[in-house]
């Protein structure tokens, strides 16, 4: 194996690795949208007024959340087709969307819930006192207050998702990580292509994180929680 850093290899690997960028980015976006949607389902399920059902939902979420997404990907990719009756073969991309999407939807669901729970009790009472209908109550009072504070948190999860997407290289999704590994396998030098992957992640995620931090500060200033009480 090549044991010395070479800028020549670096420049040679760069276009090769970049070929995978589109897949990485589009997988991130697809996973994220799927998780955002599925998050609503969890929030809704946890609102069902049945103790036993709630308990089951809570622990299913806990199970998904505290087991490795890597294993969940393997399950969907290798095991799902083998399940008698319901199993179908999933493409690597679909497996990744389902696997990472489901995994992170449990976190997203919690964010939605925290948004709803952060609303002051007085707001619910006020909307009751003003005789709003259920739909109006949610549309005009609750959601406009619940959504904005969650936006920075949701933004953070977009970045987290982006950084988890290279896991999909293990089930042959041809993003930058897989490209780097296959370049390494072909040329016996892994370090340069992997460094490129690291730099790409840094270049894309760091500015986004800074942006979200700014957004958070702005949101906090606008939605001073004490304002409703003062």
């Amino acid at each position: 194996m090549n044991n010395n850093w070479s800028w020549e290899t670096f420049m040679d690997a760069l276009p090769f690795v970049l070929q995978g960028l589109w897949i990485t980015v589009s997988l991130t976006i697809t996973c994220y949208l799927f998780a955002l949607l599925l998050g609503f389902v969890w929030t809704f399920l946890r609102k069902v007024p049945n103790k036993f059902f709630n308990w089951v939902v809570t622990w299913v979420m806990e199970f998904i959340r505290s087991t490795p997404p890597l294993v969940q990907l393997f399950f969907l990719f290798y095991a799902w087709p083998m399940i008698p009756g319901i199993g179908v073969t999933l493409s690597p991309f679909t497996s990744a969307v389902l696997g990472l999407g489901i995994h992170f939807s449990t976190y997203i669901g919690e964010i939605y819930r925290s948004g709803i729970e952060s609303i002051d009790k007085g707001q619910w009472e006020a909307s009751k006192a003003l005789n709003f209908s259920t739909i109006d109550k949610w549309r005009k009072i609750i959601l406009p207050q619940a959504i904005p504070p969650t936006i920075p948190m949701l933004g953070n999860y977009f970045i987290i998702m982006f950084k988890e997407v290279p896991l999909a290289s293990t089930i042959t999704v041809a993003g930058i990580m897989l490209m780097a590994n296959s370049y390494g396998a072909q040329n016996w030098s892994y370090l340069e292509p992997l460094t490129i992957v690291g730099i790409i992640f840094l270049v894309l995620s760091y500015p986004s994180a800074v942006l979200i931090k700014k957004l958070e500060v702005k949101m906090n200033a606008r939605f001073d929680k004490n304002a409703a009480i003062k």
Partner: protein
Amino acid sequence: MFNLEFYSEPKPKLEGVIIMNAIIEIFPQLARGLHVTITVLLASAILAYLMAFIAGLCRLSGNIIIRKFTGFYVEVFRGTSLIVQLFWLYYAIPMLFGIQLGSNWWTGVIAIGLNYGAYLSEVVRGSILSVAQGQSEAATALNMSRFQRMRLVIFPQAVRMMLPEFGNYTIQMLKGTSLVSLIGMTDILYYGDILRSSNLSQAPIVYLLVLVFYFILALPLIWLTRKGEHISKKGVANG
């Protein structure tokens, strides 16, 4: 035709037995990886906690060089993926330092430890900063030195605040240990992969059991995290 139908009748029962037998067969196989998973988790958690406090405090230091340097470490490790770092270190350590660590175990521990150390250092820093200003002022009014203020007043409160996040990140670390199977470490997932490739039709039970294994390991951590949340809710002044 007739024969087939005759045979298909007791099938549900038979399938149940097959699954039970498979579980009994698979479980001990997976358990062989328990040792690696747990030791990697413990060692990387210790490294991560250590890095968290060192880097967290360094980022609050008055010295700008120390601050920038730790900032660089934190942002690089938070800005890239664990899997990328793991593979990078796997190839870089022998090259950059000219040493073989002797085993990939260390590579896994260093990658996971440094990665989550970076995340946790932000928790340490944030908790220290969020201890109310008045606490430090009261300590000053009692004529405590800078070090005493930190040790007796700020730190004990900050640590309480950190507990839930330390719990959460330890669960993340447990999940992260599954990556070491990718660099050839014989952890739970590694044995799962072996079983799967030797008998593809067993894949669903194998991976389900792997997940159950990780979940069982996570349960005490989940419990500790909830306990930590409970503790952190009392005994802290912030604002």
